[in-house]
């Protein structure tokens, strides 16, 4: 009996590492392709007859003549930072409103979240384009920032509403008795208390805006204004694929959400799992 258990355990361990290998191989492949010169990887990156690691591909992608990732990264930050700050402020206020005024808001906000999750961005694409056009905001970051802000509001509101329900009301009521207005109570007392929740929501919103492709595709057109994700398809080349360059570019665009994930792993997974387990 004991023996059978060890054998089973051994099989499980082998199976686990086989699975891990299958999943990690493409990542190793992209990494190897990015750090090696083109002629070394023509027969597959798994040939190590010659191995001269270089950062040349990264430098080339960073300073690409038509799709520079240096510029793309800067542009993406110019969009992602305000597109994180605005919805957080707006949705935190709404989440507070929902949590503090008697209103059956938990279900309502949650259903709103599901509906916006379900809604494809294609459904708003054309009218949003027309609105931006009417206000002269096509090809300007302000338009894209506002769409991202609106898109993030439902889930951040839901997230913050639940966070506020865990903060006791006593402190606020004490302040109110001392004559502080609702406005003051919110910005001086509630907002600072909510900072941990705001931080994890901000990280998630930031990565989503950073990773977005479709909304950028339909709003930003000038070559020098394109965001980082928009430049990846342009790096592919027309006649042949320069895999080293493309791999290096892909890694650089991936690094930002990857860092957020590593730093905030627990909140990240909690954010995804949370509502299903309550």
């Amino acid at each position, binding site marked *: 009996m004991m023996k059978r258990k060890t054998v089973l355990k051994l099989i499980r361990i082998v199976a686990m590492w086989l699975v891990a290998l299958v999943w990690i191989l493409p990542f190793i*492949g992209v990494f190897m392709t990015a750090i090696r010169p083109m002629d070394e990887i023509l027969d597959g990156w798994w040939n190590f007859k010659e191995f001269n690691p270089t950062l040349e591909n990264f430098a080339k992608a960073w300073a690409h003549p038509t799709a520079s990732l240096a510029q793309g990264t800067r542009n993406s930050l110019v969009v992602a930072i305000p597109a994180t700050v605005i919805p957080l402020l707006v949705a935190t206020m709404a989440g507070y409103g929902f949590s503090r005024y008697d209103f059956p808001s938990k279900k309502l906000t949650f259903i709103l979240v599901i509906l916006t999750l379900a809604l494809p961005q294609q459904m708003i694409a054309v009218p949003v384009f027309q609105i931006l056009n009417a206000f002269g905001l096509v090809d300007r970051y302000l338009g894209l920032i506002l769409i991202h802000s609106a898109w993030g509001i439902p889930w951040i509101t839901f997230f913050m509403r639940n966070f506020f329900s865990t903060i006791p009301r006593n402190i606020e009521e004490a302040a109110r008795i001392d004559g502080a207005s*609702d406005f003051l109570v919110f910005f001086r007392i509630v907002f600072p208390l909510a900072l941990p929740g705001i931080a994890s929501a901000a990280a998630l919103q930031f990565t989503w805006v950073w990773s977005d492709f479709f909304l950028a595709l339909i709003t930003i057109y000038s070559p020098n204004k394109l965001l980082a994700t928009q430049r990846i398809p342009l790096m592919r080349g027309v006649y042949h694929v320069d895999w080293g360059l493309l791999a290096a570019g892909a890694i650089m665009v991936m690094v930002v959400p990857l860092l957020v994930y590593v730093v905030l792993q627990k909140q*990240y997974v909690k954010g995804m799992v949370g509502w299903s387990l309550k």
Partner: protein
Amino acid sequence: MNRRARLSHYLFFMLPAVALLAFFVIYPSVRTIYLSFFDESGRPTLNNYVEVLSSRDTFNPSGFEKGFPLGTLLHNLIWIGIHLPVSVLLGLLLAILLRNMPSSSFVKSVIFLGMVMPMIVGGVMIRFMFDKNVGVVNLFLQPFGIDSRTWTAYPDSALFSLIFGSIWLWTGFSMVLYSAGLETIPKEYYEAAQIDGAGRLRQFVAITVPLLKPITTVVVTMTLLWELKVFDIVYVATMGGPGGASNVLALQMYTYAFREFNFNRSAVVAVIITVSTLVASVPMIKSSLAQE
């Protein structure tokens, strides 16, 4: 505080959020529905629906004899038919396999990586895996006597490459959710079942599966939503090609609207996607309504 004062406070906190949503989400959605029922000169019509649904882009019956493309509607359905069962079951299987194993958190993180990276990078990775020269897929197929080729570049294999690539990308989601779900099942249940003489399979069917049902609802719904809305990875890996062989609804909508500038037709495709995603999310809405 009286009711009216309360309402005004409430409005102060909610108004900015409601305004942004109304302007950039609700109004545009309604406007798209409107556009789908009018022709270019502004007369009400059902022709857009007739045109899109009878178009070969959407459904191409001759594809059954001549091979791909079969039309976006069928491509999305094939995507669901393969990807949904495989990624949900595989995720559950992996969650069980990795449970309480040494260094399983590392393996889980690796599998979950596909969920973390931007989908546009995911598409590049898929293209890369299936490439003739640098792709790792050919490395595995060679021993079976299958000739190397760029699998995403041929009509008969482009769509399947994307689908299997997306399994690699998205299985981490169901695995992580099921892993978290398994932790919530009390060990006593299994111990009691063991005393009653229930075997492992019986325990799995009678305890694990029913207790994971709420999670299955979430996993299936979210996976369905991605399959219906898939865009980025197709755009960057194949652009729907070759010859439309891997085209999907979301990309068809984009082509109609931003390449052919036919906003009425594109609105129809958008409505079709939205109706299907709303139907797909009914179970999740229902279960959230039932929860207290």
